[in-house]
């Protein structure tokens, strides 16, 4: 990055729209994360239409700010009512909730805020320094590699997003098939349009994303109609929010270690905030002098997973921006947001579009810091927000789903697409599929098809032999095979975590 780009970055970040986007992104992200049943993925999907009409820097900064803030917001309900707002906050609930029971809920929230801020900032710095050199790898890519990178991306998200690998991969194929709808660019033949003119340009990505993640979520929440949910007790936020100096001294090493772990885990495709926070928690426990205190309401047990899960965000953006491989459902949706702005992941992001990309990265650093400030100042307010009823949220989300789908092309057909995908998403989720591979399939489908067709022309003879003569292709094939076996490694991790959880509970009982 040279001085000229730096000047443009400063100019971009000081614009009114970007500053507003940063504040709204962080504030909105914390609220969405804190609200029951709402996830970072859903928030990003719902807000892509809003950012579509904004300047790319402001729009993308807002989306990344929402991503990191929503992960933090999810810890509020995890700590205060033992109900994680996002899966990434599950580890924080172990000690966080015990602290609440001891009357230290406010301190647990304060520690979670500071740890999230540090974790997010460390990972954002890693993104700033690691992404530009890594993006050069994409320079060596040609048609065969683009095909293989699409296959690789789909196998990792497919094999990890759902509990059943077959269903995860099948969801990826559904996405590829949906991506094939419309006029075939090379031959001009309409495919799977069933005579509809509206389908000739294919299925619009944004309405599909909104339906799959947001409308389906409202339908899932509707199952709880008439049921009462846990409420935060009035004295849960008693005491001071800020931890004292002595407590800081005991946790700072853990925070830094977990920030590093989180960033690394985030970089691994497919391993999201939930895995990052558990690894951070386990490692903090392993290195701690007070192992026996973990699980009993120990402040280090909040600091470690919270810094790790927010550190995952910056790490996950590295493969996304450099190679176009999203490691989690939120980054898959973010990839959609990026593409809609006309930005394609790879080296060009750091050369041709350097001023936008670096502005977004610096915006992400500022968002992580802002998260700490807003989180600490508004802790008690966010706790109140997390008590808002799902009954009131549902019609608001549906209203936003409708207007968001319509706004992209000013087209009612897109609203119907959103509704259809909402139904598909609901039934997929209820039968053990995950919607993230569908979205990724839709994005990567055309890239995969073009890559495959072009490499068939380039190969002239046997396609497989051609692939094996290209070193990067061989690496990508190997990575694809590894990603197919990664669920086994994940199962091992889960078993280990379950054992550690049992240990913690045994310690508590004794």
């Amino acid at each position, binding site marked *: 990055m040279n001085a000229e780009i730096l000047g443009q970055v400063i100019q971009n970040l000081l614009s009114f729209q970007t500053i507003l986007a940063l504040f709204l992104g962080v504030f909105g992200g914390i609220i969405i994360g804190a609200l029951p049943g709402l996830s970072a993925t859903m928030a990003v999907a719902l807000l892509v239409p*809003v950012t*579509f*009409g904004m300047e790319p820097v402001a729009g993308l900064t807002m989306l990344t700010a929402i991503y990191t803030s929503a992960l933090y917001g999810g810890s509020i309900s995890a700590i205060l009512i033992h109900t994680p707002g996002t899966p990434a906050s599950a580890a924080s609930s172990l000690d966080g909730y015990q602290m609440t029971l001891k009357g230290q809920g406010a301190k647990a929230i304060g520690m979670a805020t500071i740890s999230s801020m540090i974790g997010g900032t460390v990972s954002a710095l890693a993104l700033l320094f690691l992404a530009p050199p890594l993006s050069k790898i994409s320079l060596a890519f040609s048609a065969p590699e683009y095909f293989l990178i699409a296959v690789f991306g789909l196998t990792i998200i497919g094999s990890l997003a759902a*509990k*059943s690998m*077959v*269903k995860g*991969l*099948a969801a990826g*194929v*559904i996405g*590829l*098939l949906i991506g*094939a709808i419309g006029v*075939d660019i*090379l*031959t001009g*033949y309409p*495919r*799977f349009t069933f005579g509809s003119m509206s389908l000739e340009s294919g299925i619009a990505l944004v309405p599909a994303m909104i339906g799959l993640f947001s*409308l389906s979520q*409202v*339908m*899932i929440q*509707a*199952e709880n*109609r*008439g049921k009462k949910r846990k409420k935060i007790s009035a004295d849960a936020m008693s005491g001071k929010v800020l931890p004292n100096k002595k407590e800081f001294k005991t946790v700072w090493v853990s925070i830094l270690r977990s920030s590093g772990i989180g960033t690394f885990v985030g970089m691994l495709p497919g391993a999201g905030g939930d895995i990052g926070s558990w690894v951070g928690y386990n490692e903090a426990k392993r290195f701690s002098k007070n192992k026996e205190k973990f699980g009993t309401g120990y402040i280090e047990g909040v600091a470690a997973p919270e810094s790790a899960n927010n550190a995952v965000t910056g790490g996950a953006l590295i493969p996304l921006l450099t190679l176009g491989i999203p490691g989690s459902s939120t980054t898959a949706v973010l990839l959609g947001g990026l593409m809609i702005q006309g930005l394609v992941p790879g080296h060009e992001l750091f050369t041709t579009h350097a001023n936008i990309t670096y502005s977004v990265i610096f915006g992400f650093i500022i968002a992580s810091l802002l998260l700490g400030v807003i989180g600490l100042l508004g802790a008690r307010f966010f706790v109140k927000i997390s008590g808002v*009823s799902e*009954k*009131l949220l*549902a*019609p*608001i989300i*549906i*209203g*936003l789903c*409708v*207007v968001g789908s*319509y*706004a992209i092309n*000013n087209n*009612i057909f897109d*609203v*119907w697409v959103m*509704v259809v995908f*909402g*139904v598909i998403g*609901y039934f997929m*989720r*209820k*039968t*053990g599929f995950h919607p993230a591979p569908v979205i990724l399939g839709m994005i990567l489908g055309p890239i995969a*098809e073009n890559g*495959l*067709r072009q490499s068939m022309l380039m190969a002239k003879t046997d396609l497989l032999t051609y692939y094996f003569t290209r070193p990067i292709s061989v690496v990508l094939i190997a990575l694809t095979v590894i990603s197919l076996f990664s669920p086994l490694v994940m199962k091992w991790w889960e078993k280990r975590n379950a054992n550690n959880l049992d240990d913690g509970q045994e310690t508590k009982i004794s």
Partner: protein
Amino acid sequence: MSSKLHQDLYVGVIVIGVSIFLFIKTFGLIEEAARYPQGLLVLFTLFGIFIILKGIKKTKLLREGEELKYDGDEAPLNIKLLKSPLITLAIVVVYVWLLSFIGFFPATILFMASYLGYMQVKSWKAYVFTIVGLNLFIYLVFVMQLNVQLPAGIFFE
């Protein structure tokens, strides 16, 4: 012995059925345009077969009286579970259908009031704040800021 079938069996059959239907649809295309979707559909059929095989295993366990573990949002589908989501869907369908006729804002107000009623919200303040709040937000952000031309409907055309 229970005659219950695990839902994966139905899912697998649907996957294979959809694959066959779409495969037949590719017959009308020229070979170059058809090859890629045909390859995907073969793969999709294979996944369907795997899902059925898993479904057979799970059905056996169900019939032996074992309780199966469902992860995340997955749950055995039945009328009781589906009732509220399907009513929600019906209300959304009517809402979207009304958009073009009576316009975005009247349709949204009508939808929100009826959905809040369905969700058993009783406080009139909740109705006012939710309906006014969302419509105001949409007007300020989408109409004023992003210049989106929302459907005007018969009242404002």
